[in-house]
């Protein structure tokens, strides 16, 4: 019998491992799942952006060999071993691939709609495998994994979470779900508009409505953990280069020859942290802006992301009774 329950004042703290923006990287996701045992935490909270950004066509060539292009270099794949190594590199980088004949490749050239469709198919396939893997890896433990999308993910792909989730995986997307005996997890995966016009962007006013709708039924917001993909505006967790969205791909805005930095976060998120004073704010989205900010009593974190190198940037945070006891950034 537990007199002092998990997360309650005087009881054992709940330890959360948070990571975000892994963008399809297989080894990074596998590390994320293993973080439960490795860091001895109670909950794995993912902050959005599950989908990869690039798809590499591996095109059949004469004589049973293949050609592909990766990181600006042409690759001529001539053996099964080379193919395995090549695909392993793609997995680390978070890229999708498809072996195809030259005829099939030509059907995609210049047809962005078809390319986006292929992305969705391959990303959903990978996400289903990931959810199944999480169920398998966390079976027999008390830890749960809370998944959600970010601005770069498509709704079609995210539906795979609900399709595969069973006992250990929780679809946290735009929901309030219990985290322990004391705290709830409130998740919003959208971001404010970006120069990249990504699939799931909302204006600040729309974000405000989404957040307030979610928080309406929460009895004690101070016991809530905010898992908002988009960091608060001008918090230091959202600093990135200002980009000119009138060209593709967007290019840095220069002032007197120098690039301009700005805060790309959300005012609605900053206002929510200030007004509701939750236990903690967990944020991602801006990979290069790892850090800590404070809103009254509430600390907000962005652990950053280096998924492309197979590195899992994360954060362990220990909470109890609506307070953060301590935190530790990780680089695993």
């Amino acid at each position, binding site marked *: 019998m537990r007199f002092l329950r998990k997360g309650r004042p005087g009881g054992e703290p709940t330890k959360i491992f948070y990571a975000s923006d892994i963008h399809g990287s297989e080894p990074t996701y596998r590390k994320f799942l293993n973080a439960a045992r490795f860091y001895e935490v109670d909950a794995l909270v993912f902050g959005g952006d599950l989908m990869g950004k690039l798809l590499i066509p591996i095109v059949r060539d004469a004589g049973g060999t293949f050609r592909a*292009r990766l990181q600006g270099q042409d690759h001529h794949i001539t053996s099964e071993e080379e193919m395995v190594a090549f695909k392993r590199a793609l997995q680390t980088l978070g890229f999708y691939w498809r072996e195809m004949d030259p005829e099939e490749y030509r059907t995609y050239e210049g047809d962005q709609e078809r390319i986006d469709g292929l992305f969705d198919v391959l990303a959903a396939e990978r996400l289903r495998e990931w959810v199944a893997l999480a169920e398998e890896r966390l079976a027999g433990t008390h830890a749960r994994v809370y998944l959600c999308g970010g601005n770069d993910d498509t709704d079609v792909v995210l539906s795979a979470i609900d399709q595969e989730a069973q006992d250990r995986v929780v679809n946290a997307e735009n929901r309030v779900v219990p985290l322990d005996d004391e705290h709830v997890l409130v998740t919003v995966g959208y971001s404010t508009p970006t120069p*990249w*016009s990504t699939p799931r962007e909302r204006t600040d006013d729309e974000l405000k409505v989404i957040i307030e709708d979610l928080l309406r039924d929460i009895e004690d917001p101070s016991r809530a953990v905010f898992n908002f993909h988009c960091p608060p505006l001008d918090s230091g967790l959202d600093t990135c280069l200002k980009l000119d969205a009138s060209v593709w791909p967007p290019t840095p805005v220069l002032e007197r020859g120098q*690039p301009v930095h700005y*805060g790309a976060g959300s005012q609605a998120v900053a206002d929510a942290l200030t007004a509701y004073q939750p236990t903690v704010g967990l944020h991602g989205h801006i990979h*290069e802006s790892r850090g*800590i900010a404070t809103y009254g009593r509430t600390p907000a974190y962005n652990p950053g992301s280096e998924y492309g190198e197979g590195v899992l940037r994360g954060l362990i945070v220990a909470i109890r009774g609506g307070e953060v006891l301590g935190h530790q950034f990780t680089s695993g």
Partner: protein
Amino acid sequence: MAEATAPQVFTRRASGLVRVMSPYSAFVYNILTMGIIFPWTFIWAPTALQGSNLILGIIFAFLFELPIALAYVWLATALPRSGGDYVFQSRVFGGGFGFTVVFAFFVVWILQWVALSGWLLAVLGIAPTFIGLGVTTGTQVFTDIGSWAASTSGIIIISIANALVSLVLLVSGFRNYVRFQYVMWYAILVAFGIVLLLFFTTTPSAAAAKLDAFVGSVDGVQGFFATARSAAEAAGVNFNPPFWLFGTLLVAPIAWTSLQWATYSSEQGGEIKNAHVFRQQVFIMVGALAVTASLLILLALAMQKGIGQEGILIASSGYWLGVPEATIGGNFMFPNLMAMAFTSSPIIVLLIGLGFILNSFQIVCNCYIGTTRIMVAMGLDGLLPDWFAKVHPRWKTPVNAHVAYFIGAIPVILGFNLVPEWTRWTLGVTFANGAVMTLSALAAALLPYRAAKLYEASPGAVYKVGNVPLVTIVGIAGFVFGALMVGAFLFRPELGLAYTADSLPYLIVLGTALLGIIVYAVMRQYRASQGLKVEYAFAEIPPE
């Protein structure tokens, strides 16, 4: 589809990461960090290692540093993030080791460079500029300003102001620094070019006459060159020494005190565009190394042409042997000061002076930039208090780390200039900084084995000799060369800690290492009290 044409990559609308510092800026940053304008080698080696060949020594230093710089290329492309050596060593050797080495031997010891850059600004920038202007324009007030700048109080005030102005510039935004770096770069190139030209267009006899006239105006000394020569000879300088090969090899560690900074941009890898691209890092680090070594060789050739071996030995005796007759206005005969004596134009004097002033300022900026990035990384890893890691929401810079480093530099500036024994106590600076870089070369050698997944995902993984990763070969070579040079700093009296028989300099090095261990132990204990382990900051999670 033609067989030779590879298919293109498919993309979708997704956000991307963009970085601020161009590879060219990083390349310039490394060259400026090496301080081409303050070539210690020229006033240190000739009399400390009589019979050595300066140019050959610089070539040896280049060859020894080359594998170290290449090892950094692998590290910087595998781990293109801010924090550089701390990140590399923590990842390969573990957090406790990486923290202790980099905190003690970089963060603490680079405070000495803040003090030194203030001294350089006052003594080799402002003082000679105003003394030169005083001589060329016949204005006493300039000479008086120059003399004040070289006085103890002048140096202290200028040093603190130097550190403060740099703090304000860097806190106001990194892009402001990057913008100003171009001003510094071109001003320094102009100054360096003028110095070269003045040496190349004079002869030893003409140079001696011009130095006589210049010193006559500054110090009122007649027949300066002959007097300085006699004094140097009396102090033990052999003006016709036989060639000494081992001495020439020992020039390499001295020249390395400049060339070792070819890789300093790795401390802010997270801010460099395309930092993960291999050939880009080759350009940034190896390119900067090659250009700087070439410029130093060019300067050596120019000095030999302009003042000859005799003049070089006299200049060196003022520094290494402490011959007062071989100084000008109390200043060591650095190439810039001699070049000022070769011209009668106040504009040329001003241009040379400006280059030196800006390079001194650039060095203090570099101290801040590198160490604050390291402190931020340590703060985020939980090994320094969180306060150090905070980034100002408006200026987007690590203000707290900058302020802490400025405050830390004040007692070092005071000690450096007020405590006569300070320089002797802190002889370990060359050893300490070199040790960090040598250990990073070893980290590169072990990267494929200690961080296999990370290495396999890096662009340098494709380079192998047989089955052996090329990074292991260059890393071992770099470690061996670095260890030899660091060993020379430890044991050769001409180079560093062994300059005096006193054990205190060694104990101070040990003390800083102990400080690193204590800070690590305290922070580890503090995090444990929160139910957390600092080891988690570095431990790689197995994906399977």
